[in-house]
């Protein structure tokens, strides 16, 4: 475990940031927010074709570049910083790791190359109408058919479920929780896009009615494998949160340096200084924790489950704190639709709730460290 970015990783970060600044600045984010699909397909293609980002952490034998989770997390931090609306998280984090963690070599060979080259969008459907982030609460049922399996039930809060070509679905069989692959055009599948508080990340509800599906990995083994996937997803999301929190802090500090009130920049007032320094303290703490978590995943450390809950709880709250204080420091202008502060605020709250909030993950953490 090195905990220091290599020159190549630093260059990766710079190039992703440059790309986002050029191709997906916040003005473009606003256009994508209002668009039909919710993301810019040409940006997506460039991310894949020019930069190869979708493939970055996928093993070479499955069509990927075989770099580490750290590289992936660097990309996510930058995407989070720029609030880039993109099926990246659903496809490259949730779906790709669900496949990898399931340990199904054939399925990986079939399905990962399309994810890696960006030609197919995938996602993971595990949450249901209950809104529970606990794998134990999954009820959607799978029964064996002649050629495969048939799924019946509903999934909700599925990231980019409205545009995904491939949906990995967690379902319960007689053997336990299992993972299935469902094609977007499968029979009996109805997808409804859900309007989202955070317009930069779309969600969908899926109804499956005898929908044919392919079993991924071992029947009944997904309780373990998906838990591993969700731990990675928590750290990946934390990387996004870190990027967003830093952006909110930067925005607040920049404004505090130039905004004049009572003939002084507001950043000269202790009230603002102390807010900003508290934001910095939390952002830097989130950074230390997230970077550790990234390396822990890359090194397949035993402490990943502990760190995942720790990092998700901390970064969720650090980001929300930064985004909320950014609005307060901006005053009235920060409350307007035209100002970008609310985009971060809504992403922060949504990312906090998604995959479970601070209380949920602190309880997990207590359990995982053995209290």
């Amino acid at each position, binding site marked *: 475990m090195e905990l220091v970015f290599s020159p190549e990783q630093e260059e990766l970060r710079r190039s992703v940031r440059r790309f986002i600044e050029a191709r997906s600045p916040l003005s473009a984010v606003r256009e994508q927010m209002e668009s039909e699909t919710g993301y810019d397909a040409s940006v997506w293609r460039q991310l894949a074709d020019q930069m190869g980002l979708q493939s970055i952490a996928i093993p070479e034998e499955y069509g990927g570049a075989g770099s580490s989770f750290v590289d992936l997390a660097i990309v996510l931090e930058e995407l989070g910083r720029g609030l880039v609306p993109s099926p990246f998280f659903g496809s490259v984090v949730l779906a790709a790791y669900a496949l990898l963690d399931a340990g199904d070599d054939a399925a990986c060979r079939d399905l990962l190359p399309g994810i890696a080259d960006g030609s197919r969008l995938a996602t993971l459907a595990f949450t249901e109408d209950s809104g529970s982030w606990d794998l134990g609460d999954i009820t959607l049922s799978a029964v064996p058919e002649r050629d495969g399996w048939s799924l019946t039930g509903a999934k909700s809060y599925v990231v980019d479920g409205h545009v995904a070509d491939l949906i990995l679905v967690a379902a319960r069989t007689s053997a336990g929780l299992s993972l299935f692959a469902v094609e977007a055009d499968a029979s009996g599948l109805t997808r409804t896009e859900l309007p989202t508080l*955070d317009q930069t990340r779309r969600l969908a509800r899926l109804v499956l009615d005898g929908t044919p599906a392919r079993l991924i990995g071992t029947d009944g083994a997904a309780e373990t494998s998906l838990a591993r996937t969700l731990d990675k997803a928590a750290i990946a999301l934390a990387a996004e949160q870190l990027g967003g929190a830093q952006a909110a802090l930067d925005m607040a500090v920049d404004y505090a340096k130039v905004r*004049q009130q009572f003939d002084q920049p507001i950043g000269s007032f202790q009230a603002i200084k102390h807010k900003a320094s508290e934001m910095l303290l939390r952002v830097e703490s989130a950074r230390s924790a997230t970077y550790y978590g990234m390396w822990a995943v890359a090194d397949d450390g035993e402490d990943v489950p502990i760190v995942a809950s720790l990092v998700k709880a901390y970064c969720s709250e650090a980001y929300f704190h930064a985004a909320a204080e950014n609005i307060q420091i901006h005053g009235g202008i920060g409350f307007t639709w035209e100002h970008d502060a609310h985009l971060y605020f809504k992403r922060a709250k949504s990312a906090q709730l998604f995959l479970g909030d601070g209380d949920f993950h602190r309880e997990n953490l207590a359990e995982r460290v053995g209290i």
Partner: protein
Amino acid sequence: MEIDLGPEAAAFRTEIRGWIAAHAPAELAAMTDWNAAAMTGGHSVNAEPEQSPEYAAWEQELLDARLICASWPEQYGGRGLGPVENAILTEEFHRAGVPRIRRGFGEGMVGPSLMAHGTAEQQEHFLRRIITAEDVYCQGFSEPDHGSDLGSVETRGVVDGDEIVITGQKVWTSGFYRANMMFVLCRTDTAAPKHRGLSYVLVPFLDNNIEARPLKQMTGAAQFGQEFFDGARAPMFNVVGGLNNGWKVAMTTLGFERGGSATTQHLRFEREFWDLVDLARKLGRERDPLIRQQLAWAYTHVQIMRFSGLRLLSQLAEGRDPGPEASTSKLFWSEYEKRLGEIAIDLLGAEGLVRPEGEGYQVSHWQDVFLASRAGTIYSGTSEIQRNIIAERALGLPREGGHKPAPKPATR
């Protein structure tokens, strides 16, 4: 528990209760919840019932009984109600489920300023029109670059014969879409020291070279306006308190509404609290110890608003000045509401991620509370400015070295 405000207050309560029973149009109370919050995050409610004949009849009854702008002195068309009577009026209207019709900024700010600083002719001309709603005011204080720092107003007012011509920009104008008049603070002497070159002018708002645009908020609604003045004109008669004396007029203490809704303000928070409890039950989380702590925290704060209101009113009923608790009220409820919004959306969990179907950026009730509540700690003086004011005025701590005192701004 009821508080005892003395025999005079009791007599007034009986009188008002009888008057309501005799004069409120049948069915008015049943039409809508008149006492719900007027708006949550700018998504207005109650717009249709206000167009009803029952509402119009009620408005006329109130006008006849001088129960609009009722705390204004009788000579100005009010009933000269004291703070306790004023609160009782609100309470009894609330109890009966009928609206207490108010005249917004006209009643609360323009009227008092005219009474304190206007000429007899100005009072004669403008006050009656506020009571009848012939003139509906919006506020023209805040500017894009001067949120809390009112002394820095840049909008220019130039005297041109018997008119004043105004050019510049105002912002954060609540209720702008209902207004036909705006009270504007503008700079009429650029050479004078900051606070000495300002004038307070009552400006016709419509067809007067003022372009008003709605300012969309993060909630998706447009509660505020921004206005571009390109040579708007007002008669010199409309300058209140004299040219270049506008700072003093703007700072006029708003003493007329004291008491007001002290003992009813908490009711909307209390209703909201029980709605939140219902939500917790619906989600099956009302036995969760963490949720119970948050609900008990919220209940505590709502009740403290009630207790503080009762305490304030009891003081006023005894003819005493309210204590420092009065200065903390805005900070208290705005910070409370912000936290409540967070509790609600966190309780919703995954459901909080999803908005209702509909055109534009529709939000659910709790999402609206969550988003809209961020404004409460910003407008009418940010929480930071409130804390400075409390420290300096209620605790007597010294002003910062060389800094200007923080004037209490009054956006919205």
